[in-house]
Every structure is written in C-alpha cells, then in structure tokens.
C-alpha cells in the first residue's frame, strides 16, 4: 500500500486526534483545518505515505510552525507560507524532497505538512519526531539520535526568508531560530534540517498521522452515537485511564518563554477522595496522585473533557471542568537512557526516576 488518499473527513479527525496527542499543548489545529478545507474546496488533495516506502537516499522535509499561539490568532496560518519554507530548503540544499513530515504530531503542527504537501504535490510521510507535543527543539527523536540540527529555513509571509546554515547543537538551533522568529513578529514557518530516508526509517516515530486520525475518528464517531468517547479512544489505543475528576484549581505562570504551572483535580466516581495534581510546561509533564508520581513524560498524559472526549489544553483548562486523565504509551526512542535525558522527568526539573504507567 504505497500511498493512501487523505480525505477531508480524515483531516477533521486529525484535528481532534492531534489535539489529544498534544498532551495539553501544541496549539489548536483549528486554523490549519480551515486552510485544508479551503484547499480541498479548490480541488487540491493530499496523500499519505508510510516511511517503509522510502529509499535510504530519499530526502524528506520536516516542518513546523514556530512562535506564540496568540500571534497565530491574529496572523492566521496561511498554507502557502509553510510550502515556501520547504521550497526555500530545496533551493538552498539543491535536494528534491520525496515527501514532507511533521516535526510534531501533537496540536496544530500536525496539519502543517498537509498544507505544504497540498501546494507542492508531494506525499505526507506518516511519521513525526515527537509522537506528541513538546516545548523544546532538542526534545525530538532526531535530537536523541544526535542527527545534524541544521540547516533550517524560516519564512515570514511578507517575503522575509532566513536560512540558519550552521549551528553545532540543537540548543544553538533553538536559540538562533527563536531570535529570527521573534524579529518576524513571534511567528515563523520553518523547515527543519532535511532528513534522509534512512534517518527517517531509523529515528522517525512511525504511523502517528494514522494514529491521530484514528483517535479523532473514534472520538467523533462516539460523539455522533452518544457513546463514551474516552472508551472509544481506549478502543483504538492501548491507553489507561488514570483518573476521573473535576478541576479544583489552576495555577499558571510564564517563565523563560514557557507556560508553567499546575492543576489540581478532585476525584469523582472510583477516584472520590483522591487528589490528582498535574504539573505542566506548555504540555502535561508529571501527574501526582495524593503526592505520589503516577505518570510522567515521556508517557503521554492526556486530559480529556469527560463528556466530549476532546482534549483540554493547559492554556484553557479551568475550574469546574469534568475531566478524565488517560495515559498513552510513549515512543520507544524516548525510553533509552539518552532519550530520558532529553525528555524524562529530570529534563523538566523533576528529580524523580522515570517509571512508565505501562511498565
């Protein structure tokens, strides 16, 4: 099965499923979805390709939108800008991309490769580099694999175009590309360091677009049939329910460019009398049940509206919401010692050993 057509209904599901995989962050996929509706209305279509189909010497573009979600609410995502970032990378490197993949399947970046793919008539590769959303550039499978962090292209809709040609580390890439993004007005469409087919096959996190579509489809179908959407998610993903409760408190603060804080939940049903606290840094990072850590990154902690099954984000969660907290299994690449150094609890400042919900 070399290429599969992605229908508009798949993209509607992707928007819901990617928000779940966003684990509280990643930005809303709504404007990306609107762009795709417009592109499909114009007659453009996108196809999905498994990484198995790649030749080792193919070149793959990895894309993401960078910047402040708030700026994105005013300077609305335009599908052509991300396509331009990919084209600029081809001009710069001379390589022709076989396909386009997402840096981050969680949240709005799940749809960025589809927008570029529609304009450039290439397939979307069914893999990403996080399997979820994470706040920092070195929190990717390719950074764990010590793959080359450069070059990067960064494009602003006004025709401002930059190439970060050479940096020694992922951290340096984060610093330099962030500066460019801020000058643009805190929003930029970026194409990350090109990857070979061999690199994608070895270091990519595979099947994640398909997974996000399946999760979103399960939620939407359950909503339509008035069934339990959370049971529906667990029907398509080997996840575990951690807790059901009600939001009792939310505390947020912005430090070093991140939204940090915690939320406290009061238990309901089976969890009555127990308190769950979840710390976040843009995304949900560690969940503590009555003071004991029960789930932590890289396990995916997903906070879902108990009725609709849709994800609840760290920017919007508020007192009184009825939520169900589930864990989904993490990408294997993050379970190695090096992987945990990048995205384990200590990478976020929690001095605890990683213990998976699924161990």
């Amino acid at each position, binding site marked *: 099965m070399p290429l599969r057509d992605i229908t508009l209904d798949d993209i509607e599901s992707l928007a819901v499923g990617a928000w779940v995989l966003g684990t509280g962050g990643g930005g809303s996929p709504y*404007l990306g979805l*609107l*762009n795709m509706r*417009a592109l499909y209305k114009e007659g453009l279509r996108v196809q999905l390709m498994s990484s198995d189909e790649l030749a080792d010497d193919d070149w793959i573009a990895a894309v993401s939108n960078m*910047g*402040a*979600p*708030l*700026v994105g*609410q*005013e*300077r*609305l*995502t*335009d*599908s*052509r800008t991300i396509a331009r970032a990919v084209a600029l990378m081809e001009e710069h490197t001379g390589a022709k991309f076989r396909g386009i993949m997402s840096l981050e399947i969680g949240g709005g970046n799940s749809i960025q490769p589809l927008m570029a793919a529609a304009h450039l008539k290439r397939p979307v590769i069914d893999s990403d580099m996080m399997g979820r959303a994470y706040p920092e550039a070195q929190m990717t499978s390719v950074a764990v694999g010590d793959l080359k962090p450069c070059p990067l292209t960064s494009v602003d*809709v*006004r*025709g401002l175009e930059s190439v970060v040609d050479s940096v020694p580390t992922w951290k340096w890439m984060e610093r330099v590309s962030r500066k460019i993004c*801020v000058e643009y*007005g*805190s929003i930029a469409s970026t194409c990350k360091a090109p990857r070979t087919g061999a690199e994608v096959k070895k270091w990519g996190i595979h099947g994640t677009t398909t997974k996000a579509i399946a999760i979103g489809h399960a939620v939407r179908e359950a909503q339509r049939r008035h069934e339990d959407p959370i049971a529906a998610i667990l029907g398509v993903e080997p996840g575990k329910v951690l807790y059901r409760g*009600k939001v*009792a*408190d939310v505390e*947020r*603060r*912005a430090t070093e*460019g*991140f*939204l940090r804080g915690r939320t406290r939940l*009061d238990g309901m049903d089976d969890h009555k009398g127990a308190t769950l606290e979840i710390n976040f840094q*843009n995304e949900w990072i560690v969940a503590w049940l009555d003071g004991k850590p029960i789930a932590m990154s890289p396990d995916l902690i997903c906070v879902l509206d108990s009725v609709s099954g849709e994800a609840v984000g760290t*920017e*919007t969660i*508020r*007192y*009184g*919401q*009825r939520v169900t907290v589930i864990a989904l299994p993490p990408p294997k690449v993050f379970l190695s010692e090096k992987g945990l150094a990048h995205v384990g609890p200590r990478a976020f400042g929690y001095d605890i050993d990683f213990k998976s919900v699924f161990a």
Partner: protein
Amino acid sequence: MRRIGIDVGGTNTDAVLIEEGKVVRAVKAPTSEDVTTGILDSLKSLGSTGVLSGKRIDGVMIGTTHFINAVVQRRHLSKVAALRLGMPASASLPPFCDWPEDLAELVRGGVWMVEGGHEYDGRPFMPLDEAAVIRAAGEMKAKGLKSVAISSIFSPLDPSHERRAAELVAAVLPDAVITCSSDLGRIGLLERENAGLLNAALADLSRDTIAAFEKAIADSGINAPLFITQNDGTVAEAHQARRLPVYSFASGATNSMRGAAYLSGLSDAMVVDVGGTTTDVGQLKHGFPREANSVVKVGGVRTLFRMPDLLSIGLGGGSHVSLDPIKVGPVSVGYRLLRDGIAFGGKQLTTTDIAVASGVLTLGDKGKVAHLDTAACQKVFAEAARLAEEAIDRMKTEAGDVPLIAVGGGAFLIPDKLPGVSQVIHVEHGDCANAVGAAIAQVSGECDQIFKDMARTDAIASAQGIANDRAVAAGADRKTLSTIESEDMPLAYLPGNSVRVRVRVVGDVAAS
C-alpha cells in the same frame, strides 16, 4: 432616581418601575410581532395605576433578544462589505471563511483585503495601503453596499489603521454605516472580524428597532432617554447601541442575573434562572455575570463577544416528567404549558403539575393531579434538584459553599437546601428579574491588551486608565467608576515579560 426597565422576550414583554431602589410595580404583556405594540402595552399597563403620572423618569432601559434572533433566523440582515487590513498575512482565510454557507450567502456583499495591520508589540505589520482602501470604497459604492465592516491585524492593540480606513471609506460612501472590529473586542482576528461582520449586517435592523423603541416611549407619553442593555449587564445610550447592536445579543440572561443580584442584595453568588424550558446557571462576581472567555457561536458563527458564561440545561416549569423510571426534561411543553399540562386539562405530565399536586403552586385544577402521590412528587423534585446541583457545581469557580439566588417562573424547582450551596435565596419579583436587571444597568469600559516590558502593577494601572476613559466616553459618570474585573495572563513564547491584561470598570449613567 426613577427608572423603567423593559425586557422584550420571546413570549412576554416585562416592565418594571424602580423608584429610589425599590420595585414599585411589575407587569407583563405579550410580546408583539412589531415589538412596538408589546412595549406600548406594557408601558400602558405599568402606568394604569397612575404610578407614572406627573413624575420625571430618568431613563427607560430596554433589553431585547431581537438582534440575536435576526441572526439565528436569518431575517432582516443587510449585505456587508468586508474590508480587512493585514495583507499579505491571513490571505488564505478571508472574511466569511468559516460561516455557515446560507448566512454567508445572505450577508457577503464583497470582500476586500489590503496591506496594513500591526504586530503584537505595536510595530506596524505593513503600512496601510490607503490607495487600495480608496479603490475598495469605490467598488463598494459601485455595488451599492452601504454597510461596511473593517478589521485589521492586532487592532485591539492599535486601532489606528482601522480608524484611518474608516475615514477614507466614509469620504467615498458618506451614508455608509461602518463597523471597526477594534470597537468589538479582543485578540482573535477571525472571531473579532465575525463580530464586526454580524454587527454591520444588523445595521438596518438596529436603526429600525431602536427607532421603534423610541416611538413606543414617545407614544406612551414618557419623556426620558432610552438606553439599551448590553451583554455584560451594562447599558449604552440608544445612539451608541444603534451603532453596536451585537453588544446587546445576550442581554436577557444577563439582565436576570443582574436583577437577581439587585433583588437579593448580594453581589457574589451563583444564580439559577429557571424558565419554562431551560435553566440558565451563571455566577455573579461583584454584581455582574462572569463572562465567557472562549469562543461563543451565534447562528453558527464563531465570535468572541463579551457574553455571560452560562450553562443551560433542559430543566424548567414545562419540562416533561416520566415517573418510572424517573426522568425530568430536557423536552418541555414550553409556551403550551397552560394547554398541555395535566393540571390545565392536557395530557403531558410536567414539573408544574408536580408542583400543583404537592401544593407548592396554586394553579390550574388541583383535582386533575390528585392521583400523584407524595412519594412520586418528592422523587421528581429530587431529580430536578440533582440536575440543578450538577449544573451549579460546574459553574462554580472555586471550591466551598456559595449562596444561590433562584429566579424565573420555574424557581419553585430549586429546593431550599443544595449540596455545595450555603443558602438558597428566593426573592420577591423574581419572575421579572430580567426587567429589574435592565432598570438598574450601569455603563462599562473595558481594556484587553498586551503590555510589554512593564512591571505587572504598572501594566494593570495602564489598562485601568484606558478602561476608565472608555467608560466615560460611553456615558458613565467618572466619579462613580469602579473596577469590577482585573485579570492578567503572562504570555508564553513572547519575549520581554509580555502580559495580557483585561480590566473592566463600571459606573452610573452620567446625568445629562
């Protein structure tokens, strides 16, 4: 201070006279197709006992669902010219891009997108392309469009491009009604622009409706300024309200919450407004409803209006009841209660029948519901209480017991004790709480913007100054201003200690 408050609802037009802080008289009249007649009838009824004769009335405050109904029912809408300043950004998602197709067909008169707009920190995004704006205005004129909605990127931070464009359009189209999105609110271009487009679409209806209100008041012989109540529980003078009809979209629910605050004397409490079909639950903070901070859909269009944060559930005085298994609502007999309820000779068991059977209400024919035993009635009340309790708990923003004010015609469904509630308060004239809320409305001003490189307290103080000036511009007496909401949110990803501050102030209407 003597004011008349009027609520023009779907079924009834309620009117109250408030004198020196007391409800002197409250009346109900059926709402009429032409609106004017219903208002005139209620005013006549209000004056019939002579309470108005020879007295100076300081203001007539009207709350109405007229404008939101026009959008929901797709009636009386004007064609709108959409002018967006912000090219080359956002071009793939033009104005009307996420509207229901039927509504877009009715309202979309044309779309123009030109260079302009600002950055999040106030730098210009692109210089305003004045020549393109003038060209667009010429094309609007050629198409015969008279209602224009202008939006611009980050205009809540810097409205100068929208204002300049409005001047340029007005020079070409002197008779046009122009809505600037910065007059309507918050960050979120599509939602703010949608609000502007809806507002422009209501331009003709707004002019006609407010003229009808003014005529009804003049015909009734009352000589007093007219105010229209707003979504946030304040009022705007008629001439300003005419310009921004979308601001009065949700004023009915807000007015009943404000009325509840007034009648109970409480400023911080939960309010439950039980009507015939639905129960609205909201929270009063400093005497005003807490606002929704998220997307509100109106007639299928995403907006970010200043709207009260309400939870509506299908519970009311007309709710269908089945006894085995026990079920209350969400279906209701609605306005057919007096025909379809068992106590009134109909066939459908309702919550009102249960109240009649158990002696809570004296209505209809008690003999017709004599077969309902006490145990069954208690089960129904318990189920209604459970539904209300869950909704109330969902709307609380903090743990702990809070007082609850129960208003509306179906308030009998709310028991005197509820978990999570310190005290349930039933008030006199509670069934006219919405008209009371209209009568007591104040004027507000709001500021919602991002401040950079400022200490938090300085940012809040700046926001407060802007909100104060806006309230005074809207007709408030500066001496009476007080801050009723102050919220700040640090912004992730933005550099330089960026903080988004939202402040709202209110004051009494300034004597004219």
